[in-house]
């Protein structure tokens, strides 16, 4: 398997504070599926920010798609970010845009033709069960529907790596299970998936690798789960 991401002795601290993350050593193989668990404030979101290139480590080495993240020129970062789909904890949907336009954003910034955008977005919204809400604004959708819009936006560009930060945090268990099955479907299509969640009970129902972020370090808890 090919490494999509690898961390070597990575540490993060904000200004002169203590290290929030330290000595992280792991890799994500192409087509793998991982859960990242940990209590609130354990540093899951910080780790996710490192992965979607919104933050740089204070020490150590991160390789992403075979490139050292520190050495990537700034003007090449957008192309790499397009290979990463992100489902943000707070969804980050743009309220004045329709469901369709929100999902279409990654394609628009990539310069995809309108006709192709219409076809792909419509198909994907049907697939996530939002075919009847194409023109609805996010504020008119339920929490679960908004979550699916955020997921659709994250996967519309067929990313090689999909990161989801607490995607089940705002929905009940039934919808949470449906969302996780959706991620599994995407994973079967070849996408590397990393899901950060504090809901360990939900995670145990799936047989994927589980990492626990505790005491600023990462522990593999797949076997003990």
């Amino acid at each position, binding site marked *: 398997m090919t490494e999509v991401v690898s961390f070597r002795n990575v540490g993060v601290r904000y200004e002169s504070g203590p290290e929030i993350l330290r000595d992280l050593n792991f890799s994500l193989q192409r087509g793998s599926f991982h859960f990242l668990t940990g209590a609130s404030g354990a540093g899951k979101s910080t780790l996710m920010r490192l992965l979607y290139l919104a*933050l740089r480590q204070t020490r150590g080495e991160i390789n992403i798609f075979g490139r050292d993240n520190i050495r990537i020129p700034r003007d090449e970062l*957008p192309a790499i970010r397009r290979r990463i789909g*992100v489902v943000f904890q707070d969804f980050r949907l*743009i309220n004045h*845009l329709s469901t369709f336009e929100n999902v279409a*954003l990654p394609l*628009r*910034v990539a310069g995809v033709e309108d006709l192709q955008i219409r076809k792909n977005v419509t198909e994907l919204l049907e697939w996530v069960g939002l075919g009847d809400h194409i023109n609805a604004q996010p504020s008119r959708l339920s929490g679960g529907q908004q979550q699916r819009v955020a997921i659709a936006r994250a996967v519309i*560009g067929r990313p090689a790596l999909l990161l989801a930060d607490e995607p089940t945090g705002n929905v009940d268990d039934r919808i949470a299970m449906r969302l996780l099955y959706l991620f599994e479907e995407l994973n079967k299509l070849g996408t590397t998936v990393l899901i950060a969640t504090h809901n360990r009970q939900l995670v145990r129902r799936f047989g994927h690798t589980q990492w626990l972020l505790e005491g600023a370090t990462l522990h593999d808890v797949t076997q003990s789960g």
Partner: protein
Amino acid sequence: MAFRSHPSHLPLEADSSSRFLPCIVALMVALLTFSMVGLGALHDSVGQWSGQIEGSLSIQVPPTELAKRSPEQREAALQETVNTIIDELANLPGIARIEELSPETMAALLEPWLGPDEVVSELPIPRIIEITPETGFNFDALERQLGEIAPEAVLDDHRIWIERIADVAFSVELALTVLIVVLFGATMLSIVFATKSGFSIHHKIIELLHLIGAQDDYIARQFGRHSQRLAFFGALVGLLISLAVSAFIAWLGLRAGWPIPSLVFSPLFIALIVAIPFIVALVAYLTATRTVLRVLRQML
């Protein structure tokens, strides 16, 4: 500037939080245009008033030297002096017309003070000769020759009034020009601040676009075009409002009998007024793109 040739991929105009920008721009542009029209009107008016004053001068021939003579002798002597002045000065270069004000006209001019009685004809009032000079007329030569023909005659050439009007007009025009420069600066600054404050609202959208892989230039252009459209619309509304208000004030003035001359603005002035919305739109575009690029540079 093409506003529709490259439509925004983000329908930002649907965002109600952006609507205060055109309002501010409209207000500032209205004030700016109003001041410019005021300056143009003043400049044009002063020019016309000066032209009217410069376009005429008069000679008074007083009867004081003839006070001891009988009315008939006095009138005959006065008429002879007037005729001599007219005959001599008519040959001077640069005089388009020279004629004496008729007794009827004089009586009509004095009627408000002296009444319509025959008494006017019996009073030793001066005779008035009106001269219409051509452009570049030599007033000094006229004054010199008049002194030789009739030393008692007085030349009233209005030059002191013209100089005073020119001084006052220059001061007011200078003050208005400074005001316009200040207003233009304030308009540009208000666009800059309104655009920048608008971006604090859009900060999350900018960050999102950045994280989903948009190039900095792409994001900056989207917001630049958005601000450009809003600013152009606001400036156009402000321009139309100020022109309508100016026209209304002029109409009120004409109805009230104010001395408002018919204004004819130069093509350069009209071009400047028409250019305002385009200049404002350009400033808004540049401000928006630079602001967004600055925000993006702070991100990884």
